[in-house]
């Protein structure tokens, strides 16, 4: 991973975190769910750059969200790290079809929500109930899938711009 690539990653994560907490989270979203730009970004980077970039970016983004949230530090870092790695492993499958990235985003959104709920429950968070998990999960996944066609190609363009000679 080159230095410019890492710098761009940090910038993308910070932008996504601010847009997520200050814009997307404040917009009224019917259905109780919310679009999760950070998660979609992690999955997009994993799909474009592979599992290593996905898990490193996921860890960083999760840590940033952990620092701004009111739950144990490291929980979202762990969740997004695993999700980024998992999505990166599906890279080859995703390259074969237009709709595969959308399916990966949807699967990652569900996996992240379930994983976070289980971990929060294990760490004794009384808020982690099945109802809290299910509430808005469907619409959240839907919003994430809607975000994906914008985020995934953008990350692809950025990646190629940084390294035009790379075989992609």
């Amino acid at each position, binding site marked *: 991973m080159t230095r410019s690539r890492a710098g761009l990653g940090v910038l993308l994560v910070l932008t996504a975190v*601010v847009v997520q907490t200050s814009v997307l989270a*404040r917009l009224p979203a019917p259905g109780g769910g919310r679009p999760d730009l*950070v998660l979609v970004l992690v999955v997009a980077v994993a799909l474009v750059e*592979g599992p290593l970039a996905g898990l490193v970016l996921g860890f960083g983004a999760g840590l940033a969200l952990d*620092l701004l949230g009111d739950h144990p*530090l*490291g929980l*979202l870092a762990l969740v997004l790290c695993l999700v980024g*790695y998992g999505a990166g492993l599906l890279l080859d499958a995703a390259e074969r079809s237009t709709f595969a990235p959308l399916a990966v985003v949807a699967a990652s959104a569900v996996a992240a929500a379930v994983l976070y709920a289980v971990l929060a429950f294990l760490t004794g968070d009384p808020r982690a109930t099945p109802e809290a998990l299910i*509430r808005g999960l469907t619409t959240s996944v839907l919003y994430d899938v809607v975000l994906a066609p914008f985020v995934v190609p953008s990350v692809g363009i950025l990646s190629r711009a940084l390294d035009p000679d790379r075989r992609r």
Partner: protein
Amino acid sequence: MNPRRTRLVLVLLVLVSITLVTVDLRSSSSSSGVRAGASAIIGPVQRAVGTVVRPLVNGVRTIGDLGNSRDELARLRTQNEALQAEIDSNRLDSAAAQELRDLQLLAGAGQYRTLPARVVGLGGTLGFEWTITLDVGSRDKVTVDQTVISARGLVGRIVQVGPFTSQVLLAIDPTSGVGTRLEGSDSTGTVDGQGLNPLELRLLNASATVRKGDRLVTGPLGESTFAPGVPIGIVSEVLDTPGALTRSAKVTPFVDYTSLDLVGVVLEAPRVDPRDSVLPPMPAPSPTPAPAGVPAATDPSATPAPLPSPS
């Protein structure tokens, strides 16, 4: 890319996360410095972005409220109105001024010294916590555990403070417990958050009487971390649990927690408990209102904001 190296990094980062979680769970105070540092970096950006997107967010909210209406004409007409209001910044300003006046009125009634603040962020998507980020921080003398109010009543309390921003745990968060007192009596208890479901009141005294329509304030002075006398909500249903040691009831909050914008941080609580003086006046003059009545319905400022249905 080398899969072995990838797996090594994965294992390493997973271990780091687990270590962080364990350390943070052991002593929650250990992370407050790091968290303050993080909010010192992101806080100013959040404040700037929050200011820029506020008209947009408010505009979309106005349109979003109409989403259920089937009458397309009415929808478009009101949408047009909302957009016009957005263009006319004077009108927006006057609405903000009215909000600020209402907040000052409530703060004045309770003799709270408050600092007006704007919401610039909401809790994350994956996290279950109900938190908001305010554009005031330790530089504005905000400290942890201070009470946050809006023009209608209790919002929550400060849980994290950065130099430029601070984080509020809303009263509807399931980990939030607010010391409370029934209006016109000395019955005390706690109000627990239930997310988007109504708040739950647990009275300490099992023989205390609580009726539908009773109103709740924070307090009493000295027995709660919250500033005393702040209106919380109105009892909507008394839950009779035979044999239980405490009495419980469902409480509809005065504040609509899904559309908070202008709030006030109580920097200094009054030395004398304001008791019930902050509550809006009861419309029914009789001291014992009809049990099924809705006492606060005629006073617009006391009407509890409807919470959106979770479906």
